[in-house]
């Protein structure tokens, strides 16, 4: 039972002269919630389309639920559920009819169909809207209906392509909870694509960072963030901070320290626990700390670290951003995200 739900070897897709997916290899063990994180056009949807048999790969191979995507298309199709990035619903049918269509296409018998429809409609809280034509549904309802439909035939592997794209914060949170529950309680292997960093961070066991059709990193969100060397604490000092800088350079738990425009940028583990100590050190040297800013690295920083050519050309993504925030006297780094 430790068989991989997905195994991908050197998968490549070329569209005329554009290489959308460029020699990607990875494996996803059964039961994992795996993320594909990348900007629009990075090749995430193309990977999903190939794994779900909608697109033929140019080269390379892949197995889904133990079946080859080129040789055993129907077995792959039977094993997967998919929620597409854009709604793939028939708007002239009601919610229930859309589910019924799906169940019949998957050969689920009448009694079983009724039971499962009630079950999934209940799960996504659409039972009372099931008789309404889908053209009257809101964006969030359509998405929930699609998720319900993806679960109708009890797939081993569920693909979610940007499941919360364009949804309001509340609905998004709602859908995140479903996805987690499905994975934890239902044991469904989930492959999720997103360009929302916080979504990958919140949901995924492991996440791959993809850019220009290639994987640039693959690990758990925490380990990816560790690559950046911990939290960034920025201190704005009244007076001459150079003596403090000297003192901190001799401190073991300060990993790096820099001085720019009167702002000290320090990287360290558990920055929030070190701030009182930093203030004490400054006061011991007769300096006043005017402003403190703590920045926990996010996946976005990891992303910039690996892919951000235009952002990284200024040195040190996190420190740079932190200083910018402090100079503009904006809100904290978490709120200041664009």
């Amino acid at each position, binding site marked *: 039972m430790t068989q991989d739900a997905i195994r991908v070897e050197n998968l490549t897709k070329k569209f005329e002269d554009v290489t959308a997916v460029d020699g990607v290899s990875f494996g996803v063990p059964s039961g994992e919630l795996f993320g594909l994180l990348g900007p629009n056009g990075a090749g995430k949807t193309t990977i999903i*389309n190939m794994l*779900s*048999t*909608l*697109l*033929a790969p140019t080269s390379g191979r892949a197995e889904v639920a133990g079946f080859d995507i080129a040789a055993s298309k*129907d*077995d792959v*199709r*039977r094993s*997967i559920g*998919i929620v*597409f990035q*854009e*709604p*793939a*619903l*028939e*708007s*002239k*049918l009601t919610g229930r*009819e859309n589910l*019924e*269509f*799906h169940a*019949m*296409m*998957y*050969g689920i018998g009448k009694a079983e169909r009724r039971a499962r429809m009630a079950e999934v409609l209940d799960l996504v809280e659409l039972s009372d809207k099931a008789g309404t*034509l889908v053209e009257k549904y809101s964006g969030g309802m359509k998405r929930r209906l699609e998720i319900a*439909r993806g679960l109708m035939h009890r797939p081993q592997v569920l693909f979610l392509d940007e499941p919360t794209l364009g949804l309001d914060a509340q609905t998004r949170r709602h859908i995140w909870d479903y996805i987690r529950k499905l994975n934890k309680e239902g044991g469904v292997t989930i492959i999720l694509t997103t360009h929302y960093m916080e979504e990958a961070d919140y949901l995924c066991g492991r996440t791959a960072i993809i850019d220009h059709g290639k994987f640039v990193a693959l690990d758990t969100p925490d380990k990816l963030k560790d690559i950046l060397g911990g939290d960034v604490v920025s201190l704005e000092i009244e007076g001459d901070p150079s003596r403090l800088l000297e003192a901190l350079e001799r401190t073991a738990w300060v990993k790096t320290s820099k001085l720019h425009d009167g702002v000290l940028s320090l990287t360290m583990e558990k920055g929030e626990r070190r701030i009182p100590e930093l203030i004490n050190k400054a006061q011991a040297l007769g300096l006043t700390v005017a402003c403190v800013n703590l920045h926990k690295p996010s996946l976005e920083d990891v992303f910039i670290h690996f892919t951000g050519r235009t952002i990284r050309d200024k040195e040190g993504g996190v420190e740079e951003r932190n200083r910018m925030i402090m100079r503009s006297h904006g809100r904290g780094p978490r709120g200041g995200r664009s």
Partner: protein
Amino acid sequence: MISGTAVYVLWLREMKRFLRAKSRVVGALAMPLFFLAFLGMGFNRMAVPGMGGGVRYIQFLVPGILGMSLLFSSTMAGLSVLWDREFGFLKEIMVAPVSRVSIVVGRIAGGTTTALIQSVLILGISFGLGFKIINPIKFLLGLLFMFMIAVTFIGFGLIFASKMRVMQGFAIVMNFVIFPLFFLSGALYPLENLPRAVRILGYADPLTYGIDGLRGTLAGVSSFPIALDLGLMAGFSIVMIVLGAYFFEKSESV
């Protein structure tokens, strides 16, 4: 290979769409009815040239208009793959574990049914305009012709839908393919009246034999023997469906 349930549910979807889009049905009926009413009245007193004496124009026209309605609605049914691709539903159909042949058969079943319903409605109204069926047994053969016209042009629409990426191509098909097919088919006038070069094009148009067959079976006048029409239409139906299914299977759904 062919899943009965999949064919049924695809057919059922077409039926529900058809019944729920009242304006579409009215729109699809309006043009043939205008043609029928105004051409029928306008040419009422004229003898049909090249058809011998004594054939009233309405007898000549109704099978032609039935053919026109079948041509338009069937090609549209085939082209509706484009809508499904545009609105994403094609992906839902294509990831399902059913054979691609079942998907094509389901679409043909749905498209044929809606096209035939529209034709029967037009035929019903044409009785009010003075059209008369010559023989109830031959009428059944007429229904077979309607079926074959529908199947032929659904296959035709599928081929175009598989080759076109953008919806704009749709207008080009309408203006440069469908309308010429209609005018070359002899739906409104006997082909014999056309110049020789144009007439030859007409003989290459499947709809010519479909409409001639309908004329022979419903109104009792035809340019070719009914057996010839029947044989050719059967051939066209099979070829177009096989080609349509082939191209549909080859085309990518995303």
